[in-house]
């Protein structure tokens, strides 16, 4: 699956560039599903990028695991979900030496959470690269109850916590790793616009 081209939006909406190798610098890599293809292309551009890499992959049903394993990262780990990978990822961020490069690849939910954790751990923003691949589902925070709804593909959508009907904003918090969802029928309760698939 090729790199996703998103339409122009507001300044807080994240943009993603293709991953660029930083040679054999220590590397932490986190990818889910089709994000594997971005790492495969990264390694093809410069195989040395894997020499000191710790690669964590969440297949989410994709079949790229064996090819990623064969790239020869110093450490390779497959996790069944982001939350299952979280403690390992946090430890890797904690252990990261000066100059460590972080590569994030895959869905916006994975990139957003991976970025939020990395910033909270004190990684400098210029040591972090991210490339979007695969589903354009969004990770949304309900501004009302603060609950996060994962994998949102429609606008509006129902908050999985408080049940309000929320519209999908492009306003994005890197600290939370989430877009903002706001009640769509606040002024006219019950009058909800037609649900549409979100677009890239």
């Amino acid at each position, binding site marked *: 699956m090729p790199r996703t081209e998103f339409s122009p939006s507001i300044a807080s909406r994240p943009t993603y560039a293709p991953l660029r190798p930083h040679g054999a610098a220590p590397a932490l890599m986190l990818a889910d599903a089709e994000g594997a293809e971005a790492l495969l292309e990264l390694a093809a551009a410069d195989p040395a990028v894997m020499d000191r890499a710790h690669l964590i992959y969440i297949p989410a049903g994709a079949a790229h695991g064996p090819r990623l394993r064969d790239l020869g990262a110093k450490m390779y780990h497959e996790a069944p979900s982001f939350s299952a990978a979280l403690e390992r990822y946090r430890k890797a961020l904690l252990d990261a030496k000066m100059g460590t490069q972080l590569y994030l690849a895959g869905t916006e939910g994975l990139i957003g959470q991976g970025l939020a954790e990395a910033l909270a751990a004190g990684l400098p923003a210029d040591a972090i690269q991210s490339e979007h691949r695969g589903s354009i589902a969004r990770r949304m925070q309900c501004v009302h109850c603060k609950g996060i709804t994962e994998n949102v593909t429609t606008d509006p959508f129902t908050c999985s916590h408080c049940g309000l009907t929320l519209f999908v904003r492009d306003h994005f918090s890197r600290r939370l790793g989430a877009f903002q969802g*706001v009640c769509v029928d606040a002024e006219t309760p019950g009058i909800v616009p037609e649900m549409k698939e979100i677009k890239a």
Partner: protein
Amino acid sequence: MTIRFNDETFRDDYTFHNSPEAIRRFPFPFDQDSYMYSVNLEPHAGGRAGSPFQNRFDVDEHYVAEMKDREITLAEDPLRCQSLPHMELAGWDFLELVMVSKSEDYPELFTLNRDGDRWHWINRPLGIEQRFTFLDPTTLPCGPMEYITRQTQGDHALLDQRDGNLWMDAGMVTSQADWSLDFDIGMNFYEWHAPVPKAHEMGVFQRALKFLLNLQQGAPVRRLNWTMTVNPRLDTSPENYHKWGPEKRTITPENVGAKQHLRVELQTLWRLPRSNAIAFPIRCYLMSLEDIVTQPKWGRRLHRVLRDLPDELAEYKGFAVNRPVIVDYLARFDDGADTSPGIFPD
């Protein structure tokens, strides 16, 4: 100068009101008969006697009631006040700025005695007396920013300066025009302004940021911003939008004069001495249309501004749905006469 503090509410029964003196000193935000975004910063170095620009931190008849409203909002949602860990020093800087300014500008209301780092603060309107050690957080009941902003009208953001940008890393936000501190905390200047239409393309934020990065200690600046609010509600937060949103649809030709309020923000920006952060107080003033039109110049001008405002701005400011009723009402107070330059009433 004595101030009689109003007993009033900003929610439920909305007993908020402006006295005739408060109407005359209202910071009407339009200096001409039309409006478009601009950087519009000027030195915050005093102003006309009796106006909200005269003192560094304006205290008016709404002070006590506004602080009570803040307390209610914070009890419901403590996330309205947040400070990232590296911002504590900026909080002390801001506490010092407010205490020194208020005690000098309003000696009958506030007193600050300092003996080295042993400070003694008296806030008479709120009945507070506090002895504490400056820069020692264990000697205050809460963090320094929260402590002083529970006693200072307006929302307040503390902006860290690094990497050629400003970062909103702390704030007390309970009277906001529909933005969320909890969501925006940690964002840089361009990110938190991202939802504003048109201004990015006009280069407003690039110019404003460049100016603010060079803001000097002792040379604060100010600007006015505005929006429209139905009912005199301070807490028009996105968090509670589903609660106050229905009120926006209650405007009729009969009640628009009393219910529809012009909401003006007096924004000031201050370089802080120890942290090099910028304090950004956003002071909110509310006035009903029927009070505005008691000043004929303001009635004429507000009619022309709102009538001619681009749709995109009316939409962003959230009053597009009520604009026809508002403009019809104001038209009755616009006889077509010329208006004098500047914001003050004739």
